[in-house]
């Protein structure tokens, strides 16, 4: 029998190793699953994780899918560090897409270089505005920001649905629930002809650097970290909690809104009934797998993006159901939470050498007899 023992101080090595261990455990479990489904695990593994990376186009797709995850994940990580839990990034992404889509459609036919920047600003503001609702309710009425931000996701989905079914529906679109295609001036430039990855990707790298600077060097970042780790110490030092909530929501909402712009002004090129396959939710996993560190979020986003793309090729080549992607995401988060235990605890085997005063199995006779005879 082994037992868990608290470490005197959290292990830095485990802190870094835990996401890798979680990823490995996810792969092993996935292989077993493939085996049970009657697929060759090696082949499935190849199709899922290697094949997407073998072509330039595949790598372009990887970066394309990683972009919204990076933008949302970095923003969420900033808030999570301060114990401000924005669960509604997908709604903020949707509202960012709506706001920038409105700009694009309003200036349809205007071929000017300011259209795209205006769309980016509108997208960020749209996401911020949607994020401001839970922030306001939390700071004014102490409402749970988790519930409010989550519920607003569905409001945003429905609002987008209303727009593409009604006012913004393309009149020449055979009644499909989607808007007109955006013009060239309202579309993000591609990084390389033939790939779909666009200028939103370098933008997301800028966001990573900005967030890294904020967390590492800005006093506001420090304040938020203290609030997350020790709320009583933050109160003692006079750090304002409402300020943290606002920073967290505006930053994550704004970045999620930008991610929305990246979708509609990128691969989609129009407003559709759904603009995100749940990037905002996957970004929660990304933020934690990335240890709430901006650079970690970057790496975790690439992994998560691979899960999306691999899931698609697994559907096509192996005829696996589409739920496989969500399943792998869930496995990853589950194993991460499990391996995180070892940051603060370690397994202590009971080896015979240390048995001077204690035997392996508790109630053998000595204590018992002594107790009974007494």
């Amino acid at each position, binding site marked *: 029998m082994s037992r868990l023992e608290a470490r005197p101080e959290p292990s830095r090595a485990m802190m870094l190793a835990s996401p890798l261990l979680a990823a490995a455990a996810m792969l092993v479990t996935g292989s077993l699953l493939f085996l049970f489904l009657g697929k060759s695990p090696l082949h499935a593994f190849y199709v899922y994780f290697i094949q997407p990376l073998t072509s330039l186009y595949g790598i372009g797709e990887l970066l394309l899918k990683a972009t919204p995850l990076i933008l949302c994940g970095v923003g969420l990580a900033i808030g999570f560090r301060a114990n401000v839990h924005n669960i509604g990034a997908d709604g903020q992404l949707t509202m960012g897409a709506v706001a920038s889509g409105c700009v694009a459609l309003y200036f349809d036919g205007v071929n000017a270089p300011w259209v795209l920047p205006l769309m980016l600003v509108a997208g960020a503001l749209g996401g911020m505005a949607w994020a401001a609702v839970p922030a306001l309710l939390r700071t004014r009425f102490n409402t749970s920001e988790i519930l409010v931000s989550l519920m607003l996701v569905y409001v945003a989905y429905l609002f987008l649905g209303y727009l593409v079914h009604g006012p913004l529906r393309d009149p020449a679109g055979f009644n499909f629930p989607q808007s007109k295609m955006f013009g060239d001036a309202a579309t993000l430039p591609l990084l390389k002809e033939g790939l779909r990855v666009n200028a939103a990707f370098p933008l997301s790298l800028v966001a990573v650097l900005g967030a890294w600077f904020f967390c590492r060097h800005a006093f506001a970042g420090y304040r938020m970290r203290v609030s997350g780790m020790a709320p009583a110490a933050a109160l003692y030092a006079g750090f304002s909690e409402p300020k943290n909530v606002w920073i967290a929501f505006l930053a994550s909402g704004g970045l999620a809104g930008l991610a929305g712009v990246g979708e509609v002004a990128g691969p989609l090129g129009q407003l559709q009934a759904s603009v995100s396959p749940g990037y905002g939710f996957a970004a929660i996993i990304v933020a934690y797998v990335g240890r709430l560190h901006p650079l970690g979020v970057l790496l975790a986003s690439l992994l998560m993006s691979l899960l999306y793309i691999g899931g698609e090729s697994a559907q096509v080549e192996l005829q696996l159901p589409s739920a496989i992607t969500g399943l792998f995401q869930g496995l990853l988060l589950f194993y991460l939470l499990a391996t995180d235990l070892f940051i603060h605890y370690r397994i202590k085997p009971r080896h015979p050498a240390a048995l001077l005063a204690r035997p392996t199995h508790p109630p053998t006779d000595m204590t018992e007899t002594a107790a009974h005879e*007494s």
Partner: protein
Amino acid sequence: MNEQPRLELLGISKSYPSVVANDGVDLRVMPGEIHAVLGENGAGKSTLMKMIYGAVRPDAGEMVWEGRQVRIDSPSAARRLGIGMVFQHFALFETLSVAENIALALDEKVSPALLSPRIRAVSEQYGLPLDPERRVHSMSVGERQRVEIVRCLLQSPRLLIMDEPTSVLTPDAVQRLFVSLRRLRDDGVSILYISHKLDEIQALCDRATVLRAGRVAGVANPREETAHSLAELMIGGALPTCSLAPRAPGEVCLELRGLDLPSLDPFGTHLEGIALQLRAGEIVGLAGVSGNGQQELLKAVSGEQAAPRADSVRLLGRDAGRLDAAARRRLGLGFVPEERLGRGAVPALSLAENALLTGYLGESTGMLRRGVVRDKAVAGFAARVIERFKVKCGGARAAASSLSGGNLQKFIVGREIDLAPKVMVLAQPTWGVDIGAAMLIRQAIIDLRDAGVAVLVVSEELDELFMMCDRIAVLAKGRLSRALPVTETSVQQIGVWMSGDFDAAQQAEGANHVAA
């Protein structure tokens, strides 16, 4: 000796990953003996007791219980042998009655109704009055401790371990507890009494085993020793001292006027009509047992909880009742809270990062420039505090949680002092700090006063308050007494006031003044 010891420990050792808590400890407790285990914090007292109570297992050594070698694997095994333990911090359910709490804690399953007569009988037998039907939340700390003691006594223990039992009691309650303990001793119960209060040990205990750094430093008869010689045995060297020179106080720096404050804690104490004047260059001590409004009063002064009216807290000539903690610090307030980890310092952050916690407000520290942290200035400040206050640590980058309680306290006190406050408020400044460090901290506080700072000290240790204060007031049941000059009062008088009984005395004196 022909009498058989009740419990004998031989060469008990226990190491934790980073520290050797006990190293070859021998201990012998006779039947009907009150045996003190003395030592500074971190000397290994608690670990030793936990091993006797089966909560921790020794790495090596033998335990002999009434002549029979035993191995104690769990607290329930210890209880079966006849060992009971009263913890320093009680684990009681506040919303349940005394009988229900005790029923939950007993190994046997007994209904609370059947237990009540037994509780009454035991509590009367040992002079520990207790109503089994009363709910715990309405009870004082002393009464709660009685619940714990009675719970142990119901199992007819032959060895009772008491871990710092008086740290939460008024002097009067301490005397009553001692009467009960002596009665238990006369019935043949052995008592292991953990404390660092030397006067109590001299008054109560028959023998003392002194621990220092995990080893037995000596076994003594406390009645034949002086408090001084015991203290020197404990710290293994000469005792440092501190002194308070008379000084005329200056203008009023902090004033509380008719402060009423409801507690945020449902079982907390509301403050009523608190009035206090604190002048530059004096130390005012607030005596009282924890839970009588100390937390609330400190939060009201520090700004962690805003007062209902702005003018009920005046700080350096400004109405500060509605200002938050940062704004009050900007006016010149320094504050050392009671909880070091999680409030005075963030455990997972380094000392440098913890220096930034309040250091960012210091005018001369230059820790911030346009919202960006200047790491160099922060590290320099932390290094200065570490050096000036002799903080034992692995440097400014060591995590706060890696420091011992006393060293972290030195760092926090040092940080607040180095920020040059005009008003300094300290809660339990030497709580859990060893004697050497305590003297250093007290001297630093006295130096502040001599430099013209107004100092407010909240402490449960009357000795400490009488050693370092110019005036003392008592906080009891959410009300604050008049502050008396130390020279015009006594430990006895303050002790009586701590039970909340100061109105009558004050009115009588007021009448005298009128008559005169």
